[in-house]
């Protein structure tokens, strides 16, 4: 803890006030048992990058906002090994798409030749739809999430100010195990950010999570539907400006229920670790948050689908200098449309559905916990299906059954587990499913 407070690497720009807040967040009697220490690693140059990015954000975007694309594509086609080996194409629509499988094969091939590696950090994806992946990231790209959160709130006539000496954002999770931390954002007025796991064993005493959150009263709360459902149980008297939900399908009934519970808007947004936040939903329609990522919706032959037809969300651009994306298939599906103001939007986002499984004793098991339990088993991908009788069918290739069985037994208890082959012919598989 002492090290993190004085670390110029973790916090190149932290102030004494920021340090005081950080100490309070950590040393509070009700503070969760934080298991990770990190700062925003934002240098002055990085902060300027975020400032410039924030200044470029607008309420809506037209096609001319994407005029940067030809020059950018030319540049990445020369400097990024993966795109260079594929060769250049005359027309944008002829550029072959890539996917998470390409990243998984060798992500080093996506890092531009001329990018300095000094600032590189590494983030892991949760692997809701595939095996977890390590993504090279940049502190400025991480802090760029903040102006994007502000842009989402603006859509709802709300603001995120981030006051010095107070907690701006709480990210809540409901997982068996996850990284938790308390930090300060030097870009957002040295305000606080915490990531907490609403799990009894992460709390020092019963009821501590509720007391802690109520004491620091975060301006906004981010998380996923599973975590918000739990939050409603442990701290329903919290009144943040908004809940911002991503990472999983937000059921409309639950959406309404959460809005009633917390007395604030529940804002659904679309975000990927590979790209950062991309779009925010208003009445079920997703609006682009920035013009540095171009979103296409493609059919399975890499062609844009017609308006009103569903297809796969595909990205070009990005603010992570270590991972420029050129026609990157996200594995998520949506239907494109043009709104009344002429802006490209999409709806019917069919993202990664959260799946709660049932253990032999009837306990709930989050799919993220399964992903984590299986992280040490080398598998390109797998599918897990739970039958109505709680038995499990596990489809996979090239992995040790014994290790998988042991780990699943540890999670599910004494349920029947059968193994079958997962064919390689599908690019995308639904990793988790269960009988209803």
């Amino acid at each position, binding site marked *: 803890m002492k090290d993190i407070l004085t670390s110029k690497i973790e916090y190149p720009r932290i102030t004494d006030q920021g340090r005081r807040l950080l100490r309070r967040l950590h040393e509070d009697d009700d503070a969760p048992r934080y298991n990770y220490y990190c700062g925003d690693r934002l240098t002055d140059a990085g902060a300027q990058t975020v400032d410039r990015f924030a200044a470029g954000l607008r309420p809506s975007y037209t096609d001319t906002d994407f005029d940067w694309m030809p020059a950018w594509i030319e540049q990445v086609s020369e400097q990024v090994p993966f795109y260079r080996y594929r060769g250049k194409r005359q027309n944008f629509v002829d550029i072959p798409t890539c996917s998470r499988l390409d990243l998984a094969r060798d992500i*080093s091939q996506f890092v531009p030749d001329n990018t300095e590696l000094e600032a590189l950090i590494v983030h892991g994806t949760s692997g809701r739809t595939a095996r977890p992946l390590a993504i090279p990231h940049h502190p400025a790209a991480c802090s760029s999430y903040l102006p994007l959160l502000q842009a989402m709130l603006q859509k709802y006539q709300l603001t995120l100010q981030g006051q010095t000496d107070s907690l701006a954002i709480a990210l809540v999770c409901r997982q068996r195990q996850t990284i938790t931390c308390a930090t300060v954002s030097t870009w957002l007025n040295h305000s606080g950010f915490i990531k907490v796991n609403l799990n009894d064993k992460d709390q020092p005493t019963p009821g501590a999570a509720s007391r802690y959150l109520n004491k620091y009263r975060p301006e906004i709360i981010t998380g996923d539907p599973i975590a918000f459902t739990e939050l409603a149980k442990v701290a329903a008297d919290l009144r943040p400006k908004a809940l911002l939900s991503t990472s999983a399908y937000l059921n409309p009934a639950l959406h309404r229920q959460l809005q009633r519970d917390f007395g604030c808007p529940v804002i659904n947004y679309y975000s990927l670790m590979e790209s950062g936040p991309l779009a925010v939903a208003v009445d079920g329609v997703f609006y682009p948050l920035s013009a540095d990522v171009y979103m296409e919706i493609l059919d399975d032959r890499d062609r844009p689908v017609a308006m009103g037809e569903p297809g796969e969300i595909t990205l070009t651009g990005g603010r992570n200098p270590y991972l420029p994306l050129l026609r990157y298939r996200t594995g998520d599906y949506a239907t494109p449309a043009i709104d009344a103001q002429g802006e490209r939007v999409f709806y019917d986002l069919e993202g990664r559905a959260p799946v709660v499984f049932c253990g032999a004793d009837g306990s709930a098991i989050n799919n993220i916990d399964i992903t984590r339990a299986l992280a040490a088993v080398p598998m390109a991908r797998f599918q897990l299906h739970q039958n109505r009788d709680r038995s499990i069918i596990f489809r996979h290739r090239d992995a040790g059954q014994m290790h998988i069985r042991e780990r699943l037994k540890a999670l599910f208890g004494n349920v029947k587990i059968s193994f079958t082959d997962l064919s390689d012919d599908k690019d995308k598989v639904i990793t988790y499913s269960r009988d209803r």
Partner: protein
Amino acid sequence: MSDQKKQNHHMSLESFLDHLRLCDLAIIDPPTPHGDVHCAAIVSDTLYRLGCGRLNRQEADRVCKLCEQSMQAGRLIQLACWVYHHDALCDGRYERQKVLDLAWGPLAELAAIVAVENFIEHADRREELVRRCLAAIGEHPADEDAIYAATRLKALDSIELNRVVRDTQAAKKRAEAVRRAMAERAARAAPTYGRE
């Protein structure tokens, strides 16, 4: 044999390859100041045989300077002169600048990456040198068209091959550096303020 047939026979690839394979090894003796061979004199004589006049003072100085900087470049230029001494090219009235450009450019670069002896001993390198010399003056072997000759030369191009190898090594080194950085920094992160 008709004159045309004689000409075709002389311009055949085999004829040039034999001419090079059976060269007098004294032609690749070190040039001055590293040895006793006067490279500029050989180049001047070659130009004359090709119907291009002789080296002027400036050009001769440039050849000498090149030899001074790189003995191997001088030796390879001398060997190229041997190729140009093939009977089929005598009095061809070729463009002198094209011959000189070959000496200033590709031959100096080639000499830095391939041992000069290889252009005599190894079949592919022998063919590469012959084709480079012919291509430089706008010629190609009999029974080939210009496109085939250019394609074949491209396939034999040691400079290009060397560039590809160099680029591949650089790419491999860079990928290793990225992987190493990622492995070293696996525990380094910064908050992203929301779930993904």
